[in-house]
């Protein structure tokens, strides 16, 4: 038996893929998360009110999702409902996260695969003949920066936000700052569309070269976004069967009754399944499970995706295209929110902390993120973090099995395998720091 090991780059965190082969037969494919920091362990005993500042440090890429989830968890425990202005500002914060994340995944993580470059920055070096690429990388960083700036505007700190507080937010957004951001988003929208059009075209060419959009059998899909239009500040989780039927709706409180959790001795990350079946979370789940995008340009792209691939759509590379649709959506939706007044109303409601337990959820860029805390004497007695990437663990391994079988023949391994492994894993945009926390 031979074990092929593929270290992974251009993903968040430390992970590798191992494929076991015997005489051309693929015995197993493993996606190994090789780091652990132990947040659920070390937050024990921490004052509960410090959680919104501590948990963003689970992941510098998904920090905003953890910040808002922590605040919502404490609000659930204390029985507090934030005022409408606070919800709007939190939505803006989550859109900043979505924009930054989808830009990072599209341009920094996966765009280089489409042109055979090692990194976005390498694309820079090839300027004269490849002026297109030069433009791509500059503009990509510009679009990504809009997300970062939106997070800073709505969240205070630039990576680990501080402005969502139990009961609301600690301040509104002054009109002149909102107007300045709005103007930049207006300028950024055509740039983002142009980039996404190029990305779609390059993806199409890559598909023509490799002969597949990424085959693997249909799976269950899981998301907490809205049914009619996207909602990232979410409250209920839905599961869709491979056929497209909604088969489960549940609140974060009952996740243990609905999902199965398992551990392995080769990875620090947990895996989940639904009724024993493989689940998929992230952009494609949302594209399959929301009726419209609710904004004009993004909805046009969703429509195009549905015409080309039907609904529900299953090919793996559509996760990447789904991210592009959300990139455009995040800009459009943030513009709508910034057009409304974001100051001059109540920013928070009073509350009294008490012992108990709480569940909080957001739809993070990678899927539904749930926090659960048990609070005793104002301190954390127990904490659980249900990370969206763990829902994709089995889906990633199954998709890897498909590419391994495709590129490993009896007497040889096609060199395309290494690239295919990278492409498959990146399509799911796993976050290892979060998955192992």
């Amino acid at each position: 038996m031979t074990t092929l090991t593929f270290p992974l780059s251009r993903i968040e965190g430390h992970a590798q893929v191992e494929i076991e082969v015997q005489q051309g037969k693929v015995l197993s494919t493993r996606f190994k998360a090789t780091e652990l920091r132990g947040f659920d362990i070390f937050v024990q005993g921490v004052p509960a009110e410090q959680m919104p500042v501590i948990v963003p440090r689970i992941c510098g890429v998904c920090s905003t999702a953890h910040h808002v989830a922590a605040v919502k968890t404490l609000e659930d425990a204390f029985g507090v409902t934030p005022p409408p202005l606070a919800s709007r500002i939190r939505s803006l914060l989550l859109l900043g996260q979505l924009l930054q994340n989808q830009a990072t995944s599209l341009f920094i993580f996966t765009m280089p695969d489409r042109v055979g470059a090692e990194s976005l920055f390498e694309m820079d070096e090839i300027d004269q003949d490849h002026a297109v690429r030069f433009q791509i990388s500059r503009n990509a960083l510009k679009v990504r920066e809009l997300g970062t700036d939106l997070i800073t505007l709505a969240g205070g700190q630039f990576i680990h936000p501080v402005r969502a507080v139990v009961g609301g937010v600690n301040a509104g957004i002054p009109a002149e700052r909102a107007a300045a951001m709005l103007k930049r988003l207006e300028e950024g929208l055509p740039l983002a569309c142009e980039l996404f059009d190029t990305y779609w075209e390059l993806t199409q060419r890559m598909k023509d070269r490799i002969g597949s959009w990424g085959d693997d059998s249909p799976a269950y899909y899981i998301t907490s976004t809205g049914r009619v239009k996207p909602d990232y500040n979410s409250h209920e989780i839905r599961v869709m069967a491979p056929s497209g039927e909604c088969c489960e709706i549940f609140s974060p409180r009952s996740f243990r009754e609905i999902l199965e959790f398992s551990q392995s001795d080769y990875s620090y990350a947990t895996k989940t399944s639904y009724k024993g079946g493989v689940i998929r979370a992230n952009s494609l789940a949302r594209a399959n499970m929301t009726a419209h995008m609710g904004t004009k340009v993004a909805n046009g792209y969703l429509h195009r995706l549905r015409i080309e691939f039907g609904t529900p759509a299953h090919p793996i590379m559509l996760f990447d295209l789904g991210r592009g649709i959300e990139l455009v959506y995040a800009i459009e939706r943030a513009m709508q929110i910034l057009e409304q007044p974001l100051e001059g109303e109540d920013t928070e409601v009073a509350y009294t902390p008490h012992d108990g337990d709480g569940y909080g959820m957001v739809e993070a860029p990678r899927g539904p993120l749930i926090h659960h805390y048990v609070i005793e004497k104002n301190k954390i007695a127990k904490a659980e973090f249900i990370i969206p990437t763990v829902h994709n663990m089995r889906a990633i391994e199954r998709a890897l099995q498909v590419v391994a079988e495709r590129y490993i023949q009896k007497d040889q391994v096609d060199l395309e395998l290494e690239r295919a492994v990278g492409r498959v894993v990146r399509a799911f945009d796993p976050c290892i720091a979060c998955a192992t926390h």
Partner: protein
Amino acid sequence: MTEEKNAPKEHSVLPRFAVLQLSGCAGCEVSLLNAHEWVEKFELTYMPLVSSAYDVPEVDILLISGGVRTDEDVYHLQSAVKKAQRVVAVGTCALSGGVANLGNRDEVRQLFLMEQHRRHVPRLLPKSRPVDDFVPIDLYLPGCPPTPELFMGALLDPQGYQASLTVCQECGRKKLKDMKPDHLLGFQKGAVDSEICLINQGYLCVGTSTRGGCRAPCTRAGHPCVGCRGPSNVLIEKGSQAWLDTIQRVFHSMTNVPEKELHDELLSPQLALFLFQFSDYDGGDRPPRPKEKVL
């Protein structure tokens, strides 16, 4: 546009740098990406988050983020520094373990052992350790994460970086003599006045002892400084007791908070979020970190 690998690059004359990520959250890398002026001034040779290169090559500058948590971290750290002219430790995790240091408390350390039943994963060390427990460091860049401006300062001209002594001097809030709170509000309590010092409003802000240079994004946004930049030059070579005493003096003169309440809050079992960000500077078994080496 071809999809194959392009013609070999011409040898670049730009300084070369690499980013080695140990056990951390990638927030430092994200902040570095936000500082994208370096794209024109440096050649990035290794940073797994953005590029598929699998080994640290010979470089002029090596940035190390994250704490040392597994045997694999130790291996990567020790092999990478051999290839670098200049080594910069970036972020609070690399310097003091950062939040992961909460896991070094005796009462939770046991629980980590239970994670060790897995066979085919890197082994965890008994504690999260700062990088200078293993390798010599030329420059320390504290912050959780350091701002893009600080990253550019560290890469281009650390000596010339203009910063105030403390966060407090960069914050811009007004301190009022006659507004003395009777009790502390904790960290996160609703609406905050946008002009007045957070201590006047009853928040446990540690900006008075924290190293300047970040331009106070948190306090400007109405959240108390949690000290992620570590101790200011006044406190840097001293132990955390000196820092606690200083904070206590500040609150004594600016508030009417009873001595005991303040003391309990600050010491609430080693948990004040900021305390661990100040640890490890005074050295313990090592000599203290010289302030000239800290940006």
